[in-house]
């Protein structure tokens, strides 16, 4: 059975006919061809698929597209400014070498953006705990932690 789903992704209304079982991440990657959102596991462990739904970070592998009907979705492609300038959190990842292969990075950034809203000046431990649902195999988290601490402060400063 197929069903029509409609939502707003990165500020743009989108709509498509999909199978009912289509995961939100599949809809984003395959129907919308927004391939910055990644799939790194099949048990909701790695967080590479993290996007924002109505302002909250969620794992887009863990809901079907239908559940996002009418929602506002933000993916990594919608984070930088329109002129291409990096968002302060993205810039902090670059500045602090918070990424290597880049595969987990979109999920890390999306999770960090949500976390930073409520933690304008987080401690190292708070950041580590915020990464409970995001796996990275390259960085040993060291520079991701530093990136998020710096990015959160930069976001707070530009408010």
């Amino acid at each position, binding site marked *: 059975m197929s069903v029509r789903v409609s939502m707003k992704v990165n500020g743009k209304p989108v709509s498509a006919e999909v199978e009912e079982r289509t995961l939100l991440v599949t809809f984003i990657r395959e129907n919308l061809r927004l391939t910055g959102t990644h799939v790194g596991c099949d048990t909701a462990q790695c967080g590479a698929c993290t996007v924002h739904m109505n302002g909250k970070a969620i794992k887009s592998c863990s809901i079907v597209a239908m559940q996002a009907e009418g929602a506002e979705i933000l993916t990594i492609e919608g984070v930088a400014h329109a002129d291409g300038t990096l968002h302060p959190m993205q810039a902090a990842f670059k500045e602090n070498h918070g990424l290597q292969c880049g*595969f987990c990075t979109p999920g890390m950034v999306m999770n960090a953006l949500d976390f930073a809203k409520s933690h304008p000046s987080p401690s190292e431990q708070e950041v580590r705990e915020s990464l409970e649902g995001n796996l990275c195999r390259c960085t040993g988290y060291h520079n991701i932690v530093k990136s998020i601490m710096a990015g959160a402060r930069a976001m707070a400063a530009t408010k």
Partner: protein
Amino acid sequence: MSTSLIGARVARKEDYRFLTGTGQYTDDVALAGQSHAAFVRSPHAHATIRKIAIEKAKSAPGVLAVYTGADLAAAKVGGLPCGWLITDVKGQPMKEPPYPPLAQGKVRHVGERVAVVIAETQAQARDAAEMIEVDYQPLPAVVSAAKAKNGPALHEIAPDNTCYVWALGDKAAVDAAFAKAAHVTKLDFINNRLVPNAIEPRSANAMYTRADDSYTLYVASQNPHVERLLMTAFVLGLPESKVRVVAPDVGGGFGSKIYLYPEDVVVTWASKRLNRAVKWTSDRSEAFVSDAHGRDHVTTAELALDKNGKFLAMRVGTTANLGAYLSTFSSCIPTILYATLLAGQYKTPAIYCEVTAVFTNTVPVDAYRGAGRPEATYVVERLVETAARELKLDPVELRRRNFITEFPYQTPVALCYDTGNYEATLGAALKIGDVAGFKERREQSLRRGKLRGLGYACYIEACGIAPSNVAGSLGARAGLFEAGEIRVHPTGTVTVFTGSHSHGQGHETTFAQVVAERLGLGMEQVEVVHGDTSKILFGMGTYGSRSLAVGGTAIVKALDKVIAKGKKIAAHLLEASEGDIEYERGLFKVAGTDKQKSFGEVAFAAYVPHNYPLDKLEPGLNENAFYDPTNFTFPAGSYVCEVEVDRETGATQVVSFTAVDDFGKIINPMIVEGQVHGGLTQGIGQALTENCMYDADGQLLSGTLSDYAIPRATDVPLFKIDTRETACTHNPLGVKGCGEAGAIGAPAAVMNAITDALGVKDLPMPATAQNVWRAMHTR
């Protein structure tokens, strides 16, 4: 430019695309006429296949084709080759059983590919794969290395499941040394099986073009040229010129993406059969049963010492589990890359190591970050620390008594270390890790109900495997050089083509730093291209921490040729003798005068050769080079780990980790530090959390990221790291390699710290809360 780019913390060129979601990984590639493959995998560890019923699947919606091993056999698709021939103790070649891309009548591990379904969509392919009924006759299985010899035979050619028994070193000298030893320390180890788990799952997307009978394969690979060579020459019998392999952005490798895998072969072959683009992307559960695993050794090791604590000899016996088939480089890991490292940083005069490599009903085992060297370091550094405790000596003092201090140093296990300064890294690690303050910290921990322990590891590794002819004499079936090309454009910008591959290491930045510095250009004038056989002349790829030492040197050699030709052009333009031209910071100058031409002017003259010595010199400014190293490089370092163990639960936390490494010259310290952080975390993962477990029937118990615990952010501390530079003596950059160090040194440091905290001699990895609790309560 006033400041040097060498040693500078240059932000990475590649970051922008990764941070904005515009990287392109293999699964992001959508080709015209894209179809999708799903593999039917064996649920049994060992079984004969009586029948495969495919009719229902074939007529399922969207299905384009179903293929089994019979189709591949009929098309004369070969088996996957092994890239290293080990010769056993009796001078016989190792046993090389066939490794068919799809099972031929028998399956030998859970996850082995039995059939493939290709359909219009991924969902249709997966739905149809579930309709295939395979009638299996299960057979008894063997999973552990220790039981393999007496277990049911996997392959006809190896009735005792033994691939080879191999040895290195002087057994008689070792036995004699043990006979006169004042003290012998003996330990039995299990080096736990690991699953690499790069966060990007493997993916392969093949396209066939009928117009010119050519193929393009996008694949998550660390070495696209090797993938092409193995696939065309050994499996599909195709001309290499007809196959383009592209490894675009690759989301981590750690060894697991070095190899030629059956899925890559099958989608490539099927793309022609169907005249369609065929994509397969692994899900994580498939990755656990199809990506090559790492480690899995069972070892007994002994260290003989004299009454002064001088090492006399080391004796090591290892059984290495190779899994069900020989993966691409599996055979050289527990031999050439393991036994040769058993001297470590020490003047042990006699070493003997015997390795029995066995087949079991498990996923094939191959190189995983460190590849043999972590296993060797674990043996050496656990033995040394344990010997110190038994002799009531400070482990630092025991190491110092035995450090190699004069170079070059010929070890008794084949390697010749060109340079090193082990005291320098150890001394720095003691200071940075504040070892002097440990006693006080231990008291503080105790007051909080925690046992605190401190452990060391002083590792050495051998990187940039070479020279090719020596490796060839030891069984390598491939060259171990690297290729590079410098293409200077008419306007003076430069594109660098390297046969190395970056899947997180930042080559686009580091290599550009090297080129920009040497040519005196800005970073923005240099682009680095890698990962495409149609663009790059040749390549051996990235593994064994070789990219800068071998690939970087090839680039430097090509640069030297560019500058040499540029001098000829400049001499003509400046009406001077070639011998009088000097190149400095982007300028060709006539020595002792103010006459000069910029790099851009010379490049322009090379491509617009109006005023040009056409009678003596070809136009253009484009040079390539191949570099075959004269020796390994030998990075080394000293690690100090502190752990706290909860006395109630056994839960163990790494609370401090100090790493001081000597990687030779460093181009970009920011990137090097990142490599160390990641390596350390994988090493800590092996020691504390990661364990690939099979049950006795060969069912994988740790088959998802819910069951197999790769470290999370709360499992590791902020690392205290530093470097010391002893330049490599035999490459022009003086570099050694840094990618694997952390994973090599960390497990021993962590386990030395835990055994110190608990006051026990040994403990199996991983030191989970359960294992630690058990050790505390069975003393």
